[in-house]
């Protein structure tokens, strides 16, 4: 393959560049719209540069935009999502780590079957559990609360986190564990002293995957939370689809970026693990 620029290579780079523009265009449009004034939006067009840059829409989106009857901006909902995502991610990842350890290193009769049964949880459409879950949360008295959402996200995240850790631990040579057992190390000692120290990367993958899933979730949020306990995705959807008053596109876009920032940030700083998580979650062993 030629390394210098032939006409073919120029076409190739042009195609790649064009595709890059296609992917970046919505991000550019969101950003530029969010710093325009409403007059600028109406007078100019979508891809025109802003005539002047104002952060009014951002401050309105953060602290005073109306989602339905409430007019406190995205602020409260952003923190709802943080309070929901952080514990759910940590709990489901820790349980998944121990589960994955068992099904890979401590197989017992029937453990493979049990693991397969567990995996089914990755594939079901969640619509099929919404009705009983709503009823259960109601009876436990945690309907419409962040704790209720945490419970739901932990429960339905376990299948994925177990899968991640299982697929990682099976790549570790059995001899390592066998030798430790001969030396008298027990179940927890092996896990804490031998496996945890080498599990950094898979923890990253799992935490990032879970965080992205839970932060971006809409279905559980819209069904199991209402009013003040809504996560940010639900609030954003309410903001954008509220039909009262003048439509403030700049505020909508600022709110959308606010909702996207945490996962985008994670992607920027740890993209490597993000990609690995996606492919690991996809290509199952």
């Amino acid at each position, binding site marked *: *393959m030629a*390394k210098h620029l032939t006409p073919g*290579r120029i076409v*190739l*780079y042009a*195609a*790649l560049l064009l*595709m890059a523009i296609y*992917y*970046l265009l*919505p*991000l550019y*449009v*969101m950003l530029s*719209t969010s710093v325009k004034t409403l007059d600028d*939006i*109406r007078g100019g*067009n*979508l891809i025109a540069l802003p005539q002047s840059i104002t952060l009014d829409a951002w401050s309105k989106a953060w602290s005073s935009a109306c989602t339905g009857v409430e007019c406190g901006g995205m602020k409260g909902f952003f923190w709802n999502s943080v309070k929901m995502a952080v514990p759910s991610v940590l709990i489901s990842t820790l*349980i998944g780590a121990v*589960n994955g350890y068992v099904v890979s290193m401590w197989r*017992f009769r029937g*453990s493979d079957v049990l693991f397969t049964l567990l995996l*089914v949880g990755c*594939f*079901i*459409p969640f*619509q*099929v*559990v*919404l*009705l009983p879950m*709503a*009823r259960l949360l109601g009876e436990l008295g945690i309907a419409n609360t962040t704790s209720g959402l945490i419970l739901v996200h932990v429960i339905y995240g*376990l299948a994925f986190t177990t899968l991640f850790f299982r697929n990682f631990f099976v790549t570790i040579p059995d001899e390592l564990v066998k030798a430790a057992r001969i030396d008298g190390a*027990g179940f927890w000692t092996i896990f804490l002293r031998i496996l945890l120290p080498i599990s950094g990367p898979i923890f990253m993958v799992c935490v990032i995957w879970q965080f*992205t899933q839970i932060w*971006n*979730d*809409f*279905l559980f949020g819209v069904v199991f939370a209402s009013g003040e306990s809504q996560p940010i*995705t639900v609030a*954003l*959807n309410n903001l*954008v*689809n509220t039909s009262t008053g003048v439509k403030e*596109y700049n505020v*909508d876009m600022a709110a*959308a970026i606010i*909702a*996207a920032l945490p996962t985008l940030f994670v*992607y920027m700083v740890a*993209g490597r693990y*993000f*990609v690995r998580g*996606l*492919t690991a979650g*996809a*290509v*199952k062993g």
Partner: protein
Amino acid sequence: MSTPQSQASLSALADRWLPKLVLSPTLLISLVFVYGFIAWTGWLSLTESRLLPQMDFAGLVQYQALFENDRWWTAVANLGIFGGLFIGCTLAVGLFLAVLLDQKIRAEGTLRTIYLYPMALSFIVTGTAWKWMLNPDMGLQKVINDWGFPDFTFDWLVDPDKAIYTVVIAGVWQSSGFVMALFLAGLRGIDDSIIKAAQVDGASLPVIYWRIIIPSLRPVFFSVLLILSHIAIKSFDLVMALTGGGPGTASDVPAIFMYQFAFTRGQLGLGAASAMMMLMTIVAVLVPLMYMETRSAKRG
């Protein structure tokens, strides 16, 4: 005297039981919250439940009602249109990008980052962005108008016959980078010597890709199909954010149908029946694909 020995046997005993003990809460959770809840929903779909669940068996009345509901068939037809186009286009764009990126490109890392970032976004954010871009008055239409084509119109978002296609546009944008990453990983796993041998035989690059490389990516195709059909059948957020199922019910999909009947219209039985239909669709699509995937993986 016997203390160390009994301690050893105690820890051996612990090692026998601990793994099962540790795994059991998760299994119990899965049993109740996955299998139990599916059974609960299944049973609910066989009752006459409306606003409140009631547990008397009523046969298939809800399924009958579902199959006589025009809105359900709109949703099913939309899922067909959306699923087919979304899977087809995402696959094509993803594969195309992967092949392009595989040509020893400078700045490959940067390009990959750009192609893949939409996957980090929520479908609600994607929907919001595209809803604005496809706005019939102020969106892309106006850009083209301003460029000197004043008669150009692009109002699919508010056109009942076209609204579902806007969901395809946004869905492909969000997911194609991910498919690119999967194919690229597959391409990188192919032995270079096969390609070199074909080149020696005088085969051109497109022919090598079409005849040798792409067919050898069979297992990746199965994974990609598996994931994309899964995304398509479950698609809910993107449609909610982009069209809300509208105009009217023109871009309804089964997930929206289920949500509205179960949670805003108080038709629990019908909602449960539609949820069970979604589950059966997933099973019907995924099981054959997974079967083929494991078979081709074993052969490959």
